[in-house]
């Protein structure tokens, strides 16, 4: 492989991406997982490759930028208002629960926090795909599930920023927490102010030049600058990218801007999951097997609790709430993102956890209707 021109190898890689995506579509496997496995398989060739790492970083920045584009400030507030109870429960049960479990197993503070983060967020992409394939997009609990996933999308960049800051300064003191919170607040407020007072005035400008071929420079430039700014002040570039997207959605041209960026995002994003795969080393086998198994069980319990109690707070009746909780178990891209901050030993653990939870999640998703019927039937008999 060393004697072939890089261009050739890059081409082979992209064709591999094509094959993976196509096969994943046909066999209903989440492509995210297959990309990680490909990275794992290519460790001897690609480990430490600078280009892959750069592309991975661009990929993740664009992913969160496009995500932020979908959400204007008004929309975020609207969704947060309906889902915050369930959202907080989600943080407490899934992040908190896993964090505590990791501490019980004698992990250090930072590793426990990272494990909490990995267990916290359900996979938005896998869930959305499952909903669509199983024709459950129109179900009454779907709105709840999607809102919860978005709440997680909002919490995750902030969580990641904390973990990134913690990573560089191992001691979590009150002072550090306040400092990080202040930085997050400052960055967010900056985005809100610039978005509301600045970008909202750009609607006509963008309308006029949307057909041009240079608007993309502006978009991606803003995304990179704000992400870089976030990194500069010690937070995660993901938060910066997301906020940049929110800023630009204030222009009101979200869907057109998204269309500009989706092709680039779609090419670069798989590199992130590929890169993650190349960072995993199973040198010592799978570490901490007992903790892994307990976390998997807790992953299921945690989400069922959120579905049941949170769903009720959202206004769902029993059966749809159970269905929702049982359908949110799969973890995926967010967990991978958080795991990428971890130390190598933790990465192997995390990747096994993520793959298993995705697999378990898909099974529970399919069984959710039957299980929720049984669970709510059981309750009826009690009464």
């Amino acid at each position, binding site marked *: 492989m060393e004697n072939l021109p890089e261009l050739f190898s890059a081409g082979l890689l992209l064709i591999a991406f094509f094959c993976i995506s196509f096969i994943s579509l046909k066999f209903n496997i989440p492509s995210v997982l297959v990309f990680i496995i490909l990275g794992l398989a290519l460790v001897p060739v690609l480990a430490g490759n600078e280009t892959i790492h750069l592309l991975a970083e661009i990929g993740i920045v664009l992913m969160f930028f496009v995500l932020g584009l*979908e*959400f204007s400030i008004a*929309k975020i507030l609207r*969704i947060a208002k309906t889902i915050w109870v369930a959202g907080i429960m989600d943080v407490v049960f899934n992040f908190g629960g896993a964090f505590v479990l990791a501490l019980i197993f004698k992990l250090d503070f930072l590793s426990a926090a990272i494990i909490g983060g990995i267990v916290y967020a359900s996979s*938005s992409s896998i869930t*959305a795909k499952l909903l*669509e394939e*199983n*024709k*459950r*997009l*129109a*179900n*009454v609990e*779907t*709105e709840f599930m*999607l*809102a919860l*996933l*978005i709440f997680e999308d909002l919490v995750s960049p902030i969580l990641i920023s904390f973990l990134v800051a913690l990573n560089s300064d191992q001691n979590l003191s009150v002072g550090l927490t306040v400092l990080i919170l202040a930085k997050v607040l400052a960055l967010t407020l900056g985005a809100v102010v610039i978005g509301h007072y600045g970008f909202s005035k750009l609607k006509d400008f963008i309308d006029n030049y949307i057909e041009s071929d240079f608007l993309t420079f502006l978009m991606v430039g803003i995304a990179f600058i704000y992400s870089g700014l976030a990194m500069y002040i010690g937070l995660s570039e993901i938060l910066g990218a997301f906020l940049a997207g929110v800023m630009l959605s204030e222009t009101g041209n979200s*869907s057109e801007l998204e269309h500009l960026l989706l092709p680039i995002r779609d090419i670069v994003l798989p590199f992130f999951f590929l890169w993650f795969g190349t960072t995993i080393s199973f040198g010592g086998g799978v570490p901490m097997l007992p903790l892994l198994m307990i976390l998997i069980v807790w992953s299921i319990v945690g989400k069922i609790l959120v579905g049941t109690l949170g769903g009720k707070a959202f206004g769902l*009746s029993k*059966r*749809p709430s159970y*269905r929702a909780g049982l359908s949110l178990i799969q973890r995926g891209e967010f967990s991978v993102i958080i795991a990428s901050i971890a130390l190598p030993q933790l990465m192997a653990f995390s990747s096994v956890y993520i793959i298993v939870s995705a697999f378990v999640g898909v099974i529970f998703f399919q069984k*959710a*209707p*039957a299980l*929720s*019927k049984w669970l709510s039937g059981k309750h009826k008999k009690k009464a």
Partner: protein
Amino acid sequence: MQIKTSDLPGIGMKHAITTASGDNIIILTHYHGQRDIYHFDDLEDDMPTFSIELNDDEARKIGTILLGVDYQPVTEEKEECFSQEIRIHWFDVKPNSCLANMTIKEAQIRKKTGVTVLGIKREHDFIGSPDPTERILVNDKLMVTGKKDPIKRLESMCSSINLE
């Protein structure tokens, strides 16, 4: 009949319709244009009784049929008129449009072009079958129906932009 609208973030818009006879129909409009139609016996069911996927083009054609534009039970002589192509178009009313701030009656759209205004989309509202006294505002989206030439006439008459 009850219609409930909700936003499915990341997916599109969901309209849940409960008809007088108790049928629950859900129409999902994806961001990328695909429309899904679902039928539920009970809204809390696990799965719909059936679902249909329509692309943008199919959805619009079926929509015009449902609107009674393409087909109406009529007498034989009127049937001849309906065999010619009648379309539905959306027009964006720009600030410099000659329709801006006029009422439908004042604008004399039907008289001058032969096109009928079926509805006005304003912000998040849709005014169906508007009164002739309804004022057309800037940034309104007019839903009009007519044959090809009248629509062209409306397009060239004003600098409103045809969104179709």
